[in-house]
């Protein structure tokens, strides 16, 4: 057996470091870095002026407004409602609880195309809900509202699943202490529980937002894809690709990537901050 003394000292005694790390790094390079490098390369082929023209065109700007706005609205809607659902699932017993608990993951497990046509079936003019809303003048499908609804569906599990474990693991003794010290249930909730779940709710919001930004399948059916009105940014990219305008597609993709990376970073930071606070709490 070759000398094992100093070389491996820092890493740990278990075998397989070379193989596992090698495979990991190699595959990451191939599957993740290579495609992104292609995007970066293509993007760098554009002159800054041309890139700006594409990225700041009215159509692109309209799509950013829609994508970011709808994603933010959907995530914002999901946050308080998601906390509510998490609370109810974590704390109360009622018939069908297990079923609903399982169903919360449905948007996560359901292919986006199926979500897309399902939402259309519900919210189109002739749809299950749409037909009641149409006479009221509320248009859901083929409007920004439809996009928000679709993204709410998509983002639903994120907040719930982020907050639920925190509520389930919460130390009941803390709540009891608050009650013994004289707090009403409402005060206990507002002053003791809410601060505990706030970080994870925030993380859930960020994750729902990030997911909503990039969402394609479930939105393109419901939105109607009218340029300047209900065209989401990913669709803009697809359109350009179909026209072989690789440069244009890449430019807009870079905008999206920057937003995604920024969000991912924020989420990582939030999760670290949550862990820190949970450790203190």
């Amino acid at each position, binding site marked *: *057996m070759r*000398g*094992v*003394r*100093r070389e*491996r*000292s820092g890493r740990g*005694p278990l*075998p397989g470091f070379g193989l596992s790390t090698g495979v990991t790094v190699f595959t990451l390079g191939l599957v993740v870095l290579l495609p992104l490098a292609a995007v970066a390369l293509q993007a760098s082929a554009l002159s800054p002026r041309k890139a700006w023209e594409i990225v700041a065109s009215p159509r692109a700007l309209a799509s950013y407004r829609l994508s970011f706005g709808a994603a933010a609205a959907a995530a914002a809607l999901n946050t308080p409602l998601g906390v509510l659902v998490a609370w109810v699932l974590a704390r109360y017993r009622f018939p069908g609880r297990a079923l609903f608990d399982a169903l919360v993951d449905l948007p996560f497990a359901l292919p986006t195309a199926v979500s897309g046509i399902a939402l259309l079936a519900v919210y189109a003019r002739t749809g299950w809900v749409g037909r009641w809303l149409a006479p009221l003048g509320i248009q859901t499908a083929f409007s920004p509202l439809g996009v928000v609804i679709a993204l709410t569906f998509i983002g639903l599990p994120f907040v719930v699943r982020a907050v639920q474990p925190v509520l389930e693991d919460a130390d009941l003794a803390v709540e009891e202490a608050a009650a013994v010290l004289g707090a009403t249930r409402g005060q206990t909730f507002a002053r003791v529980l809410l601060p505990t779940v706030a970080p994870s709710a925030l993380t859930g919001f960020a994750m729902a937002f990030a997911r909503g930004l990039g969402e394609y399948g479930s939105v393109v059916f419901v939105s109607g894809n009218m340029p300047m009105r209900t065209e989401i940014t990913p669709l803009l990219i697809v359109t350009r690709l179909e026209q072989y305008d690789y440069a244009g597609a890449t430019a807009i993709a870079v905008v999206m990537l920057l937003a995604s990376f920024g969000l991912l970073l924020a989420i990582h930071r939030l999760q670290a901050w949550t862990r820190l606070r949970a450790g203190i709490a």
Partner: protein
Amino acid sequence: MTIQVRGVSKSFGAQPVLREVHLSVPEGELVALLGPSGCGKTTLLRILAGLEVPDSGEVSHGGRALLDRGARERNVGLVFQHYALFRHMTVGENVAFPLRVRKRPRAEVEARVRELVGLVQLEGLAGRYPHQLSGGQRQRVALARALATRPEVLLLDEPFGALDARVRQELRRWLRRLHDELHVTSVFVTHDQEEAFEVADRVVLMNAGRVEQEGTPAQVFEEPASPFVMRFLGAVNVFRGHVDGGRAWVGDLEFSAPALAERSPAHVFVRPHDLELSSAPLPGSFPARVERVTVLGASVRVELRAPGYGERLEAELDLPRSHALALRPGDGIHVSPRRVRVFPGHDLEPDSLTASAL
């Protein structure tokens, strides 16, 4: 086939954990590494097992360098504090594992497993899973598993730390008897002084990565080499004084301190049971006031205040003596230190083990 550790040092990042550790474990003996959390004893054990590699130093067993071999080749038995039993294998499969990975023939494996399960007195439980056993039973399985390949060295990392007090007591005695039967060279890590004393032939006291003292339990208790050792091994009263020319002074009291000739400040350490209490003054005594009397069972702890000597002193008496003195809080009493240990030096490291704080 002694285990020799020479000059072993290790740091984790910027944090030094072991500093120039020297010790030897004679063949067939059970040596306890005793010390507070963070003193490096577990790291040293893991170095012996091959799970950590020292930054410098040598480790040999029977003259052969141990560090050239990885954990897999050393054939040591290792028992973890939290058992580390394979949760998806039965007791029998756990014990058989070291033999199976060495591809021993099935008949041999079965016979050896039977033998070991009998040795640790778990006959009939070989088909159970770890989660179906009690903590004490699990640790015995871990021990049987560690002994399966007849290792030359047995390493135990706080093996009874996760068990409750009574089980711990039973297993301690049982382990000692097992060792007397098998005589495997063993190293045992613990932070519990009583446990080390009960189980081990020799005790190695460690503190902050260094070996403070090595010896039999009686040796380290009666002749502690440093204030750390004295305080770690039990409650102690500390008096501040000075030494000069082979004698030590605390207030009006004088003690002999033959090894210390130079004049310097010093601390005089006295165990609670070495403080004699009397109603009348005796030569070499000082007056004190009783603060509290606590019956601990077979012995009685008396907390005292003696202005000029100590604010919180502790004496220990047996019940008969305590009855004879009939002490009440507030009473005056006279205290004579009988056996003392003198250590030169200015400051003591802050340490919660001290019975009194001056």
